[in-house]
């Protein structure tokens, strides 16, 4: 199928015959595509922020765990050579922050009140770097300091349940590997995340405190934040190569499989909605192009009579569609680009819609959601507009190439 300059002029000028229809077609493609771009910008931004929220709420982008942890979720499992492993992880160039932790199930009691809790032993300075639950929450008293022994930081809701205040001494019972150990812990800080559910789960001590209570505590996990989320797979692979003993590196998806599946579901739903919008737009274009082809039956018959081949007629109609697609892409870039830019710079304040920023699985969400904005918009605008328009025009183009010339000329 070869088309010369006159055929190209013919295709381009044909769009000027019904300027209003052409502009409406371009606007239809543009608005539909803009909606798709806005949805993609929102989806991409929200997805990225959700991952960051999950990572910074404790799961990390990556986590070093015992190889049996994924199957058993047993918090008494301990890493092999955790301190060497922590240093090896910290030295990796793709790492923003990392922190080792050990967890133990326990019971906290004060007076005649008690509450079950998962007690988490942390390296306070590192934990402050990796956990937004600490760094972004209001704190009464102070957070733990490295090597501080006998102190505990609990959530505000837990404090209320136990009816305790700062500097009160809690009676803590911790389940070790083989035994139950007890100790008195002084409340050094009370954290208010803004979420009652999340506050109920917070009970932090230093690794040194844990060791003093149950002996050699070790670490059960190393939570890792990456400099670039997009490098997750490559960093996971390279860190995996550094692991020794029973240690292994898992991603946030393995740590929070339910959240991961939920997010995938959200993305799939958003993509489905986007596909529906694009399909509706494409059907509109197909209808408009089919009308244009049927209105020009005689012209296509004349083209055929002059010796133009079916493939060339198809090509000409598709070139008209291509021009509509490019026009639509420019409109989409203008509308969708502006909206995406607004989303990326101003964001949407979720405080208008929700009061509690705790997501499922104790994730502390951001109050603002920012969209994604970048050169990808051009690529998407062009590809969505052009592909949707050209695909929608395949049938009209085929129809144009199969018009019976004698019949069309007879009935003109």
């Amino acid at each position, binding site marked *: 199928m*070869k088309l*010369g*300059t*006159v*055929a190209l*002029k*013919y295709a381009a*000028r*044909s769009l*000027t*015959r019904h300027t209003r229809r052409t502009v409406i077609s371009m606007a239809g493609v543009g608005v539909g595509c803009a909606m798709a771009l806005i949805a993609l910008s929102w989806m991409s931004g929200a997805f990225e922020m959700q991952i960051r929220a999950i990572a910074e709420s404790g799961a990390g982008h990556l986590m070093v765990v015992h190889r049996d942890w994924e199957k058993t979720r047993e918090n008494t499992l301990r890493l092999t050579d955790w301190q060497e492993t922590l240093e090896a992880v910290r030295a990796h160039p793709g790492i923003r922050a990392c922190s080792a932790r050990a967890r133990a199930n326990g019971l906290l009691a004060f007076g005649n009140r008690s509450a079950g809790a998962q007690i988490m032993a942390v390296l306070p300075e590192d934990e402050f770097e990796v956990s937004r639950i600490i760094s972004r929450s209001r704190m009464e008293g102070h957070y733990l300091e490295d090597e501080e022994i006998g102190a505990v930081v609990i959530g505000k809701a837990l404090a209320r349940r136990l009816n305790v205040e700062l500097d009160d001494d809690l009676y803590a019972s911790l389940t070790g590997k083989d035994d139950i150990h007890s100790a008195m812990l002084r409340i050094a800080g009370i954290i208010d995340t803004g979420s009652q559910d999340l506050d109920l789960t917070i009970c932090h001590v230093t690794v040194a405190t844990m060791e003093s209570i149950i002996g050699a505590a070790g670490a059960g996990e190393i939570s890792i934040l990456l400099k670039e989320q997009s490098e997750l797979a490559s960093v996971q692979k390279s860190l995996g190569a550094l692991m020794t003993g029973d240690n292994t590196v898992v991603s946030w998806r393995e740590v929070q499989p339910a959240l991961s599946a939920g997010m995938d579901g959200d993305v799939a739903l958003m993509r489905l909605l986007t596909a529906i919008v694009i399909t509706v737009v494409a059907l509109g274009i197909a209808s408009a192009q089919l009308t244009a082809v049927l209105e020009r039956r*005689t*012209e296509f*018959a*004349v083209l*055929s*009579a*002059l*010796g*133009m*081949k*079916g493939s*060339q007629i198809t090509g000409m109609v598709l070139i008209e569609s291509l021009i509509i697609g490019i026009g639509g892409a420019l409109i989409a870039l203008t509308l969708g680009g502006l909206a995406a830019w607004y989303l990326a710079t101003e964001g949407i304040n979720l405080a208008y819609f929700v009061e509690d920023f705790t997501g499922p699985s104790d994730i502390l969400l951001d109050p603002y959601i920012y969209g994604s904005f970048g050169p990808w918009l051009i690529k998407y605008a062009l590809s969505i507009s052009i592909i949707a328009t050209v695909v929608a025009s395949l049938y009209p183009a085929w129809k144009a190439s199969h018009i*019976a*010339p*004698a*019949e069309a*000329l*007879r009935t*003109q």
Partner: protein
Amino acid sequence: MAAVLTDETLVHAKQVTKVYHTGEVDTYALRGIDLEVKAGDFLAIVGPSGSGKTTLLNLIGALDNITDGTLEVLGSDVSRMSRRQRADLRLHALGFIFQAYNLFPVLTAQENVQFVLELQGVNNERGRRAREVLDRLGLGEYANRRPPQMSGGQQQRVAVARAVASKPRLVLADEPTANLDGENAGILLDMMRDLNENQHTTFIFSTHDPRVVAYARRVVTLVDGQVAKDIVKESDAHDAG
């Protein structure tokens, strides 16, 4: 001076029948037509409405399929040709002139003429050649006008230019003067007669117009889809000698 007829047969129709099927109704447009057209002919097909004139032109122009019989155009059996082969035949050997001109309204006169040359794959020369044809037919000053900016007569002359620009062996004209006044019809017929005589282009017209009949050297009359008369005018019969 009339064009010299040669022995070369451009069209050979034998018992050509065309039936249109509309639902369960069969309409016979042509009933066993026999016709031979020699190179250099200037032939008018006349007859009342519905006699099958346009149908016969469409069949010769490979725009439609025969129902029965055989039809050879330039030595090829068109009923056996694929769509692509028919398109090639039309592109390289046939020219069409339509009653309603059917120029492309978004292209200038020159671009309309150039279009066929472009389809033929003429590259660098097509602009010059299109201009030459327009000049030769006295249409140079309209080269950059689009059809809506021209009169009916001017448009039909551009249509002739488009039909002959690629130097086809055979031009098929369906009621070419039907929408023209006497003066423009005369100019058009002179132009086509000139092309016939000087470039030996063969013309077949379907027409009701007595002016066309007067110009034709051979007149085939169709009635009810059959050849009722086939008359070669005296002087041209001598020329055909």
